[in-house]
C-alpha cells in the first residue's frame, strides 16, 4: 500500500565455494530508495556505488531528491550505454517511495526497465513468481507483505538446490528505510 519490501540472500559465492554468508546485497541509494543487486561480484558493488554517488551529486547540485522513476531511468541509461562498451553484469530491483507513492522497478543487465508490482531476479523467480501471482494483492499492509515474503523464503529454502540461505530484508516507507530482522535459515 505505502511501502516497498525487498529481500536478498546473503551469500557470496566464488564458483563452488561460499566466500561469505552475511553480505548485504541491498544498497541504500538514498534515504528513500533501495537497490537490490544480483550479479558479478565487482560489477555489482562498483555499479551500485556509482549510481548511489551520482544520485547524491544530483541532490547536491539541485537540492532536490530524485524521484524513484527518475533514478530508475538514470540507472537504465547507464546500463544501456555500457551495454555496447563493457556491460555490467548486474541484475537489479530498484524500489523506492516518493511523492507519487511506492514503486518497484525490475532492471536487467542489458538495461531493460519495467515497473512491476512484484519481481524477482535470478533463480528466485522460478520459485516465487507463482506464489506472488496468486497471493499478491494491491494495498497489502506491511504485515501481510512480510508474511508473503516469508512464504517465498520458505519455498526457496525447501525447494531450491542452493537453498538453506539467510536473507536480508529491508523495507522503504514514506518515513524512510528500515532493516527488518534477517531471516536465518536456522529459524525458517
Amino acid at each position, binding site marked *: 500500500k505505502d511501502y516497498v519490501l525487498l529481500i536478498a540472500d546473503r551469500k557470496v559465492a566464488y564458483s563452488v565455494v561460499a566466500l561469505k554468508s552475511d553480505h548485504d546485497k541491498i544498497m541504500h541509494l538514498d534515504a528513500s530508495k533501495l537497490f537490490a543487486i544480483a550479479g558479478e561480484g565487482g560489477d555489482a558493488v562498483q555499479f551500485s556505488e556509482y549510481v548511489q554517488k551520482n544520485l547524491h551529486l544530483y541532490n547536491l547540485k539541485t537540492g532536490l531528491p530524485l524521484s524513484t522513476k527518475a533514478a530508475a531511468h538514470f540507472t537504465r541509461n547507464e546500463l544501456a550505454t555500457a551495454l555496447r562498451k563493457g556491460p555490467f553484469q548486474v541484475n537489479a530491483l530498484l524500489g523506492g517511495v516518493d511523492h507519487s507513492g511506492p514503486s518497484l522497478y525490475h532492471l536487467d543487465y542489458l*538495461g531493460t526497465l*519495467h515497473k512491476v508490482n512484484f*519481481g524477482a531476479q535470478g533463480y528466485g*523467480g522460478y520459485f516465487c513468481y507463482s506464489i506472488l501471482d496468486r497471493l499478491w494483492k494491491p494495498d497489502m499492509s506491511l504485515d501481510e507483505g512480510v508474511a508473503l515474503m516469508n512464504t517465498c523464503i520458505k519455498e526457496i529454502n525447501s525447494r531450491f538446490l542452493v537453498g538453506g540461505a539467510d536473507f536480508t530484508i529491508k523495507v522503504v516507507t514514506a518515513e524512510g528505510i528500515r532493516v527488518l530482522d534477517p531471516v536465518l535459515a536456522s529459524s525458517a
Partner: protein
Amino acid sequence: AGKNCVGIASDRRYGQYQTTIATDAQKIWKIHDKLYIGLSGLATDVQTFIEKLKFRITLYQLREERDIKPSCFAQLVSTMLYEKRFGPYFVEPVIAGLEGPNNEPYLCAMDLLGCTSTAKGFV
C-alpha cells in the same frame, strides 16, 4: 489498413526465456495523432531507441512547428537504424499512420538495419 484508417496491435508480454515478468509492457507508442510506431525485439534496445526517437521528434516539432509526415518519419527511423549498421539496435519497427490531407493509410515495416517495406494492405 482500411478506408482512411489504420490499425496497429501488439502483445503485452515482457518475458525472459520461459519466464513472464510482466503482462503490461508497452510496445506501441504514439508519435502524434496520426502516427504510431510499434517496436519489437530486444527490450533494452526498444527502450533506448524510443527514447532517441522521441528526442528527434520533439526537435522536429520545435523546428518545423508541425507534425511529421509518416513517410518522412519512416525515413528518419530507417536512417537512425542504418547509422548503427555494424552494431545495430535489435529492434524491428512497424509504422502505421495517415498521410496527407486525404488521410491515406501509410504502413511500413522495417528490419533491424532499416530496410523499409511499405505495403498497401497490411504488414
